[in-house]
């Protein structure tokens, strides 16, 4: 078979280059391999891809490799072809054309899909750089910005006017979605007592760019005590304090425990110079604790009769003296080896008389009935040891004794052999018709016995004078009023229950005190041994508020609800 094979190469749109060659063979093999009659030098074509041969039916083309043939657009493994038919083999197009004179067949071969530029193809396949991988900084930046602006800024702002305030502590609304949005702006935990309305910002915050006003605090805390006595003359100090907002000392959003500022400086701002700014307040200057804190001034009884009190510095001159009008010796009671009492041998301790009050901060008042009567009785007649005079009222004592003997005379049964017969008659015997002299004798006897008893009772050493300051001038017998102070340092809050680990005698030297006018308080040096200042490293840290209260309920309310700060 003689075939004319024409290779076509297109250059541009119009120009076609033709290169023809004659192939003589029984069958025309097409393929990549160089042993093919028609070599198609492209890697996309199989080594031996197809065969064209002459058969009885005509020219037949058969597929001989894996690559599929397409004859006139239709996939086929083989087919009879004639002039005009197009066969596609990989990227090649083979067209059957009319054979020229002397040839059995003629074909044109054209590479339809040239490979093109290798570099271009390589670059088209490459995706170098993260932008090519689809990452976008801009998209993510916008997304995150919008997300945080929406959730963190726009939403809380939108919800701001809708927040509800808590008007009183028993009207707390249930928590809703708006409250959770509000909480996202909460910069710190509220103090524990306020946590129940942490989500209701409007309770305290009353306006944009406005600090928390006093009126917000006074909604619930209207009755909080003042720091200053209402009528005291305190000069500019009063105006200074009145101009201070609650929130300047009470900072919220500082954590569960941290609402009240306890720094010394808050107090010493005024108290370092108070003696100059408010001399009538009679408050010593305090610059710091412990170095700048003055010695304690005990409030003692100056005159129990009025009564009037005075503040006297411990260890000062004059020595502080508590004129309670009681005659009492701690030393006589606190004998370490003990002594005999009506109920047997007893070693007395502080706790026998000083009973802690409920809560344990201080002690219950010492009373005769509670603490003294068990040992100190008020007998007045040796024959009748169970009879005692009433305590605490000299006039009643006298009438009680007189009434007693008068009744004894009336009832009879008196054993005294010197008594008149009328009085000595047995009990139950009716009163005989007595003569004038017998009645006078009986009255005289009663009066004498009463006088004798009163003599004992009002004796200089026995009787009331054993414990009391008595006065026998002007003929009448009076017992000076006794004023016992419960607290000698009323401006401070010493809590005995917090100091139970100490023994009483570590602070109070009562064992050697023989007079009740002794002031048995320890000075500041006793406290300083354990209590250091605000930033003490090896002592108990103590600030002003450790011992002193700012808000004093006894002074009345600090601010009124009309305060507009």
């Amino acid at each position: 078979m003689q075939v004319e094979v024409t290779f076509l190469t297109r250059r541009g749109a119009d120009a076609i280059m033709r290169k023809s060659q004659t192939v003589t063979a029984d069958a025309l093999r097409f393929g990549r391999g160089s042993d093919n009659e028609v070599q198609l030098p492209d890697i996309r074509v199989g080594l031996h891809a197809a065969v064209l041969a002459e058969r009885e039916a005509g020219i037949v083309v058969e597929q001989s490799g894996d690559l599929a043939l397409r004859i006139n657009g239709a996939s086929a493994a083989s087919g009879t072809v004639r002039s005009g038919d197009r066969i596609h083999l990989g990227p090649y197009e083979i067209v059957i054309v009319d054979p020229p004179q002397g040839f059995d067949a003629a074909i044109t071969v054209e590479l339809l899909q040239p490979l093109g530029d290798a570099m271009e193809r390589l670059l088209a396949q490459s995706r170098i750089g993260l932008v090519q991988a689809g990452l976008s900084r801009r998209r993510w930046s916008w997304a995150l910005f919008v997300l945080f602006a929406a959730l963190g800024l726009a939403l809380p702002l939108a919800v701001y006017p809708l927040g509800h305030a808590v008007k009183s502590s028993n009207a707390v609304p249930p928590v809703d979605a708006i409250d959770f949005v509000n909480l996202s702006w909460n910069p710190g935990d509220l103090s524990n007592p306020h946590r129940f309305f942490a989500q209701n910002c409007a309770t305290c915050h009353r306006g944009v760019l406005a600090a928390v006003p006093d009126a917000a605090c006074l909604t619930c805390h209207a009755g909080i005590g003042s720091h200053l006595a209402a009528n005291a003359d305190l000069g500019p100090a009063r105006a200074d304090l009145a101009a201070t907002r609650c929130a300047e000392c009470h900072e919220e959003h500082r954590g569960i425990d941290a609402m009240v500022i306890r720094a010394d400086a808050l107090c010493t701002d005024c108290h370092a110079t108070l003696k100059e700014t408010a001399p009538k307040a009679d408050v010593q200057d305090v610059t710091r604790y412990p170095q700048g804190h003055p010695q304690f001034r005990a409030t003692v009884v100056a005159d129990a009769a009025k009564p009037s009190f005075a503040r006297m510095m411990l260890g000062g001159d004059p020595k502080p003296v508590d004129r309670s009008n009681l005659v009492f010796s701690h030393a006589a009671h606190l004998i370490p080896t003990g002594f005999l009492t009506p109920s047997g041998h007893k070693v007395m301790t502080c706790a026998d008389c000083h009973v802690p009050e409920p809560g344990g901060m201080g002690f219950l008042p010492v009373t005769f009935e509670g603490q003294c009567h068990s040992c100190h009785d008020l007998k007045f007649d040796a024959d009748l040891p169970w009879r005692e005079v009433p305590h605490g009222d000299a006039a009643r004592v006298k009438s009680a004794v007189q009434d007693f003997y008068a009744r004894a005379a009336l009832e009879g049964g008196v054993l005294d052999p010197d008594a008149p017969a009328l009085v000595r008659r047995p009990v139950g015997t009716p009163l005989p018709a007595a003569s004038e002299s017998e009645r006078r004798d009986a009255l005289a006897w009663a009066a004498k016995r009463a006088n004798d008893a009163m003599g004992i009772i009002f004796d200089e050493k026995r009787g009331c004078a054993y414990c009391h300051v008595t006065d026998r001038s002007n003929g009448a017998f009076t017992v000076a009023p006794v004023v016992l102070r419960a607290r000698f340092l009323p401006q401070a809050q010493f809590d005995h229950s917090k100091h139970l680990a100490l023994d009483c005698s570590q602070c109070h030297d009562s064992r050697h005190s023989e007079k009740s006018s002794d002031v048995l308080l320890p000075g500041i040096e006793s406290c300083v041994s354990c209590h250091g200042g605000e930033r003490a490293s090896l002592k108990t840290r103590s600030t002003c508020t450790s011992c002193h209260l700012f808000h004093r309920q006894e002074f009345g309310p600090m601010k009124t609800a009309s305060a507009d700060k």
Partner: protein
Amino acid sequence: MRANLPAAADAGARPAHEEDRHTPFLMYRRFFYFKIALAAAVVSIVLYYGYRPRGEPYGGTWVGYLLGTVGALLILWLMWFGYRKRAYAGNQGKLEAWLSAHVYFGLGLLVVATLHTGFHFGWNIHTAAYALMCLVIASGAFGIYCYVHYPPLMTQNRASTTMPQMLARIAVLNDELRAAAMGIDDASARLVTRSIDNTEIGGRTWQQVSGRYPRCATAAALAGIDAIVASGAPERQIGYRRLRVLLDEKAQILGRVRRDISYKAMMDIWLYVHVPLSFALLAALLAHVVSVFVYW
């Protein structure tokens, strides 16, 4: 510190200053911006611990407001670097200086902002802003590491060529492979075709960053050809040997190209965290500042 080139460098050893050539931004003007940032940090610490507020240290004490204002202005200035970076015609100062300042002031911001918080943290927008800032700074610190660590590796990997040069060589090798594969069997030809047509360069994020291409067609072709050569049929040895040489060289260059892409990707990837988070921080910062004024 730019050392002078030694008169005769040791063969094979990198010059002592080559490391330095890659980190001028850290050493700019003899650590000028580092010194300023350090001084600012020290001043902040002294202020914070020296000033004793009445209550607790807090963002709202005067030291807190001062540190907060400085921190916010710092954040805005640090973000401006993204704009300055692309202002090619700008006369706002050398980019190298800007980068050095950006890095050191960004690290200093960590100190300033942490002290501003007074160490109060909670589940709120304020701590969210702080956390975002920390993430931005951390990603930036990772970026510093990348900028110091990878450029020398890239230089070494490229070994005096450029990326376009390497790609061009691969394209040429592809053409030569096509020619060399004329006489081989169809199965091997398919392997070689696949190697040519599916030369994976770059691609998805993980591929670029890791430099691992488990389905690399060139490696598959190499393995296939190796198997044939090893089977020992003599008529195949010569033709396939040339193929093997070509494929081997292509594999070597591909390895270098992919390594280069991986290093470049590492130097870029942290910015996809750093920049978006800094915009998130901007929004959170805005919310933080507005909330302070609203709830004064």
